[in-house]
């Protein structure tokens, strides 16, 4: 460089001759990179030139100005002038200046577009055409370079649907791009409205494929809340060939997994109408509203098991049967198929299958309960033991423990009695056919005045059994609530009604609940508030919000206020930014309960979204509010936001978990428990562990419960800390000096850890990645155990069975083996507790394992001998059956002594090296991590319709149609029984309450 200053060139700008100015600008353009500091002093002269209409080389002036601003670090101005430079600004240049400016350009464009699509009409700004041109040129470059993913990303950022569509269509692998886009859309787009627009495009594209991907299309429709389209798709499939029918079933199963009750009803209605013999609506508006008597309900159940409609009256059923007979053969099959489909959509099939799975695989360790029972002395621990028992047996229908300890159980009084009765509902969760029969002892009757507490508990239990699936029971419950005389019954009735009618937004139920609320009775009002929220969950009903907020500001009762606080939060479930206005007004309230309601509302509205703004807001409140409750709830709500990315949660709450404020620490523990539930995440555990030694008793309680939520179903291989925590729980329970509050937590933790006979986990999202409404609602209400312990039962809504169930076209479980490519110990049940003395039960169970192991070995040998699978299958199954039978026998004869032979076998087994795979029988218990290593056996006669590693219920296509299939025999409900007992499941013996 030969000049040392730009002053000379700059002085040329003052010359009157335009040519000189142009020359100066050209010169400046060359040296601007080194003399920008000096030129920036005269930037105004250049700007004047740019704005001078008579000056020819305006663009050059703009370019120089842009570069100067760029060097000065003022990128916004730089961008403005770069746009003014027109073609002189060369987008294909690779210089740093151009790259930076383009990056800023895209950022700016994104901001503008987002502002325009999301903002109101007034603050809509016109987008500079030149700006858009540059962005378009960048898109073109992406296409030219085949960077379609980049194009999709930027198109979504800039809200450019046209580019988005083009990027997908032009890519080489459209299917892959669609999957990718769907994933990106669901995980990254936080704005609801725009997400819907994108989803609409996606469904259009999916349907346009050569072989439309119906599974994904229907997933999109769920997000779009478009029941009509789903129904159309299903109808089309059902009328198709065998394979598409199976596909329809599979979709229906997925739908039930992910969609709300209300949505499913809307899907079913047109489907029913499409059938040759339209089935009667089960909706109470059209169906019969006659109160159902408990007695004849059970009878009816008997003969409706093979049918589909369960509450149509006898007469209409006859008529239907008659019509059915007149149908032609193809119509009949269609009718059958549609019936099955609606059965699946209504959830009956899924619930039945889960129930079967849970009953069959129940592996509860009763010794844990026994030890706990022996160790505890006071009423709080008594109640918690009852609840823990309920959790352990959730859905297994085994009330063995209660029946064995009737006398002990009878110690429960008042609300404890209420809780104990309700715990039956948890145990029989999903056991809908027998529900009224089972609970009949406890339900309110006209003739005999029973205990109000157990009647209330009975209604609550009915709600729990029918949670989120209460078409058959809501009217019964509604009547009971109307007729109830005491506040305890009303309390239980409201809760039960809320549970059963969850998400239906039925006006008559809502009105009844509101009526109960307006009684201004503390006990009833609390339940009514929660129930209103449950019924209206996720509807954002303006009416409901207004009612609840208005009454909350009026009422004097804190209990009612708390109920309403939860109700308000529930109503806003999943509404994201639509809840912001409500949250703002709640957070400004001077009543702390309404403020924490606001916090829960954030948690509910943004649940699973991980929205940064929401997280920031919660964190701010968590450290700034004056009220402990509000802070605790704010921290807890973080868990709801982060459950999709559990690995992030520990870092977010790590500092809060060491807060000086015990409420905040408790909240941090709960947040971890919620967000990392069922993951066994190491980081989360290491944060929780110090809190189990906290000096404050309730923090210990929270830490214990949260640890169990995280470690549920984990064994020593998947999470080495789990046995340590197991021991800790029993140590705390047996420690005389420990605080009752902490013990309560430890006992609950034991229950949670072994939830549902060790076959259930806590999962806030469904297998398809949708937020699991039932689970989220369950955990939210569960977190209210802080104020009102009977609400603890709500946690059972969050339990999901970890199963993989294969179904044939008859929706029956065929005998089937799945291969899990991992060492059996990897995902084994945790070992049972060993009693100091002789523990018969324990050993019997291990003996069973040894038999199956041996038998499997035999199978393997046989397979080696005979290569032909067809021949092989039959004897195999026979032995299998034997194995099953002996297993059953072993279970049933829990009192019998084990034989020496079995003991020997056990030893043998230990010596054998562990195989690196395991065969699982249908229905199989498969933990989440296990799904990855799951595969069909080679040469199996069944073909799954979707990837088996998704888990859940999978419909199987049969290669060898016509051959006889082996079906897994259904097992009876009611837990282990003495063998010669009659088939009919017995309700638990009525137990006496001693009033003291």
């Amino acid at each position: 460089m030969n000049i040392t200053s730009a002053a000379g060139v700059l002085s040329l700008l003052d010359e009157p001759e335009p040519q000189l100015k142009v020359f100066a600008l050209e010169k400046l353009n060359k040296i601007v990179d080194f003399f920008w500091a000096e030129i920036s002093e005269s930037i105004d002269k250049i700007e004047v030139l740019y704005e001078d209409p008579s000056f020819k080389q305006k663009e050059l002036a703009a370019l120089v100005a842009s570069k100067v601003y760029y060097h000065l670090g003022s990128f916004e101005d730089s961008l403005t002038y770069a746009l003014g430079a027109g073609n002189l600004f060369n987008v294909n240049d690779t210089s740093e200046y151009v790259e930076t400016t383009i990056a800023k350009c895209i950022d700016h464009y994104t901001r503008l577009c987002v502002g325009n699509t999301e903002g109101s009409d007034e603050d809509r700004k016109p987008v500079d055409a030149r700006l858009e041109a540059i962005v378009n040129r960048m898109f073109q470059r992406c296409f030219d370079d085949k960077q379609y993913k980049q194009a999709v990303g930027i198109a979504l950022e800039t809200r450019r649907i046209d580019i988005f569509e083009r990027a997908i269509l032009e890519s080489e692998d459209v299917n892959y791009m669609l999957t990718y886009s769907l994933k990106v859309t669901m995980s990254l787009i936080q704005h609801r409205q725009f997400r819907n627009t994108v989803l609409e495009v996606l469904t259009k594209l999916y349907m346009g494929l050569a072989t439309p991907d119906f599974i994904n299309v229907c997933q999109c429709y769920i997000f779009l809340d478009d029941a009509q389209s789903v129904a159309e798709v299903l109808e089309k499939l059902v009328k198709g060939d065998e394979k598409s029918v199976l596909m329809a079933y599979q979709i229906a199963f997925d739908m039930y997994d992910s969609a709300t009750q209300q949505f499913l009803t809307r899907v079913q209605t047109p489907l029913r109408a499409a059938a040759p013999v339209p089935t009667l609506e089960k909706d109470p508006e059209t169906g019969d509203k006659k109160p159902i008597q408990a007695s004849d309900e059970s009878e009816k159940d008997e003969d409706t098991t093979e049918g589909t409609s369960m509450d149509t009256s006898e007469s209409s059923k006859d008529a239907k049967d008659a019509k059915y007979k007149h149908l032609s053969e193809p119509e009949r099959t269609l009718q059958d198929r549609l019936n099955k489909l609606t059965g699946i959509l209504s959830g009956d099939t899924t619930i039945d299958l889960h129930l079967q799975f849970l009953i069959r695989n129940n592996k509860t360790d009763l010794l844990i309960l026994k030890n706990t029972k022996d160790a505890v002395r006071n009423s709080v621990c008594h109640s918690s033991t009852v609840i823990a028992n309920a959790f352990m047996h959730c859905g297994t229908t085994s009330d063995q423990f209660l029946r064995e300890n009737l006398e002990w159980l009878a110690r429960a009084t008042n609300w404890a009695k209420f809780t104990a009765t309700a715990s039956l509902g948890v145990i029989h969760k999903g056991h809908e056919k027998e529900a009224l029969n089972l609970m009949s002892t406890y339900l309110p009757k006209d003739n005999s005045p029973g205990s109000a507490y157990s009647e209330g508990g009975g209604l609550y239990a009915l709600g729990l059994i029918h949670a989120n699936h209460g078409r058959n029971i809501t009217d019964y419950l509604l009547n009971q609530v109307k007729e109830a005389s005491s506040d305890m019954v009303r309390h239980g009735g409201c809760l039960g009604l809320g549970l059963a009618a969850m998400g239906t937004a039925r006006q008559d139920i809502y009105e009844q609940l509101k009526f109960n609320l307006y009684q201004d009775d503390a006990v009833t009002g609390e339940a009514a508030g929660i129930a209103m929220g449950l019924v209206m969950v996720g509807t954002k009903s303006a009416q409901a919000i207004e009612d609840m907020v208005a009454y909350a500001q009026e009422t004097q009762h804190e209990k009612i206020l708390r109920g309403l606080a939860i109700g308000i939060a529930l109503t806003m479930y999943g509404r994201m930014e639509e809840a912001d206005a409500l949250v703002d007004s709640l957070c400004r309230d001077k009543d702390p309960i309404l403020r924490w309601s606001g916090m829960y509302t954030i948690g509910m509205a943004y649940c699973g979204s991980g929205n940064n703004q929401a997280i920031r807001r919660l964190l701010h409140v968590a450290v700034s509010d004056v009220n402990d409750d509000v802070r605790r709830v704010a921290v807890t709500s973080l868990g709801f936001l982060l459950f999709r990315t559990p690995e992030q949660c520990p870092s977010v709450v790590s500092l809060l978990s060491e807060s000086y404020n015990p409420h905040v620490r408790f909240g941090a523990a709960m947040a971890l428990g919620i967000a990392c539930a069922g993951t066994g995440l190491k980081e989360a555990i290491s944060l929780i562990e110090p809190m189990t030694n906290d000096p404050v008793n309730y923090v210990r309680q929270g830490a214990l419960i949260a640890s169990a939520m995280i470690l549920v179903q984990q064994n020593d291989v998947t999470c080495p800390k789990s046995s340590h925590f197991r021991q800790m729980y029993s140590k705390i329970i047996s420690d005389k000096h420990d605080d009752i509050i902490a013990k309560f937590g430890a006992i609950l933790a034991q229950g949670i850890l072994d939830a549902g006979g060790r076959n259930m986990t806590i999962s806030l999202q469904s297998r398809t990645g949708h937020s699991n409404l039932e689970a989220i609602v369950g955990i939210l209400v569960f977190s209210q155990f802080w104020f009102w312990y009977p609400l603890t039962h709500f946690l059972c809504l969050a339990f999901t069975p970890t199963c993989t169930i294969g179904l044939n076209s008859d929706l029956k479980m065929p005998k089937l083996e799945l291969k899990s490519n991992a060492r059996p110990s990897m995902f084994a049940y945790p070992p049972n507790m060993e009693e100091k003395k002789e523990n018969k039960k324990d050993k019997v169970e291990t003996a069973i394992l040894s038999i199956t192991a041996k038998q499997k070995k035999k199978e393997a040998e046989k397979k080696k001998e005979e290569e032909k699978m067809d021949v092989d299958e039959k004897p195999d199954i026979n032995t299998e059956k034997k194995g099953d039978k002996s297993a059953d026998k072993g279970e049933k004869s829990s009192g019998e002594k084990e034989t020496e032979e079995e003991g020997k076998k056990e030893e043998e087994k230990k010596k054998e090296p562990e195989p690196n795979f395991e065969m699982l029988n249908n229905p199989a218990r498969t933990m989440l991590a296990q799904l990855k290593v799951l595969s069909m056996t080679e040469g199996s006669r069944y073909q799954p319709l979707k990837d088996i590693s998704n888990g859940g219920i999978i419909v199987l296509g049969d290669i060898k149609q016509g051959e006889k299939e082996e079906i897994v025999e259904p097992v009876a409900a009611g837990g282990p029984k003495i063998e010669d007992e009659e088939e009919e499941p017995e309700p638990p013996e009525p137990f006496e309450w001693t009033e003291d």
Partner: protein
Amino acid sequence: MFDPEGRARLTPASSTGRVLISDSLMGCTEVEMKEASTPDKEKTEKEEKNEEPPKDPELLTLEDIRDYVKYIEKSVTTKEPRFMLRVARGISGVRHRLNSNILRRLLQGYMQSPSQLAVKEDLLTFLGEPMLTNGVSAQFRPRSGKMASIPVIPEIEVYLHLLVLIHLIDLKQLEKAQICSEKLMQKLLLQNRRTLDILAARCYFYHSRVFELNNQLDTVRSFFHTRLQTSVLRSDFDGQATLLNLLLRNYLHFNLIEQADKLVSKSTFPDHASNNEWARFLYYLGRIKAAQLEYSEAHKHLLQALRKAPQNTAIGFKQTVQKLAITVELLLGDIPERATFRLPTMKKTLAPYFQLTQAVRTGNLPRFNEVLSQYGSKFQAENTYTLIIRLRHNVIKTGVRMINLSYSRISLLDIAQKLALDSPEDAEFIVAKAIRDGVIEATIDHEKGYVQSRETSDVYKTREPMAAFHQRITFCLDIHNSSVKAMRFPPKSYNKDLESAEERREREQQELESAKEIADEDFDGFP
């Protein structure tokens, strides 16, 4: 102009007390010395331990470098700049122990992978033919087995390249060094790694140094401009600070003070830059301000530069800054403290300035002229000459003030005599100017030809002491705040010394039990 790379750095020998004082213009940049404190000390200890079987010094150096390379790897894997800083500090410690043999062995040891053969050969050519020493001592094998075939990470490659470059500079093979340096720059341009920033900053520094020694400083200016912009965009604080300083140095080298000033005013020096870079920057700032007659600003900057400079080392740098600071202080009309000139490290080099100060202090113009003629060339070499010329006026002013303080009334004739002025009229003009400038408080009686001094007021009645105290207090608070900011806390150890929750529970339980016991005893005592 001081020597930026600093010859006067502490060698391990000097850590035992010998301090090299350069008597000429060699300064020393601060960087060099800090590092000597840690690794060098360890080394000396090591050496002491191993005194009986005197270990090959080459081997020791190799081992040290191997340690540094390990730090580099650690820094890259953990993304923790702390380790890289240590390496950067260690460069000068390693520098004086380098020889071609060591470098050759290093290159052989690290660049074993086939993909880096070309690089290795390239670097080896710079080192010339291997000297035939007492048989090649045991092969240096820092990495073995599989590791050998994996190419080293770019950070290590750059580090080794830098060592070669520094060695070439030390050997005064400047032609070669320039080629080597340009190759190094090529390598850096290709990388965009944040872990490389600190090393890259050192590379720029030596790059500039090579060109300065070759008297081609103006040719690299544009290169540094582009790199500066890049590092600003990448938030590379170390690069930004170093490059800004290099550019300033470049401008000042050619006396392009205006350019330098504009660059400074239009760019921001990163807050996070190391103290050493800050010290340099403040010194350059001081020079710019001094040249632009903003003496108080200049003095402030120079003082800060002195404070930011390392305490025990970088003597050359401090000497250079001190010289300028003294000159500026004199220009401000203040007299530097005598203690400044007595410091053992400063005494010799500051002697001319001491005489100058004495001349100014007494307002003795003849003496001043004498000093100027005696040391003129020296001042010129030190770039203070133009400033010192400006002092003449100050000498006169000081003289006037001294007279004003000593005499309540004095005739203009006497003043002319004392200040060696030509005539009383000249004296009158000068006094009048001094009164107008507020240097003295007096009145001139023109007719009678004398100057009447006013009574001096009590300074403690004014707000001046308060202002002075306020200034000092803010300064102290600033220091406190910045030192708090500069502190580093290892993560997760803030609660280490607190008792754990379990301990606390145990203690509380024990206390409770003992309280119970006491209560029981009490109860027993009084049935």
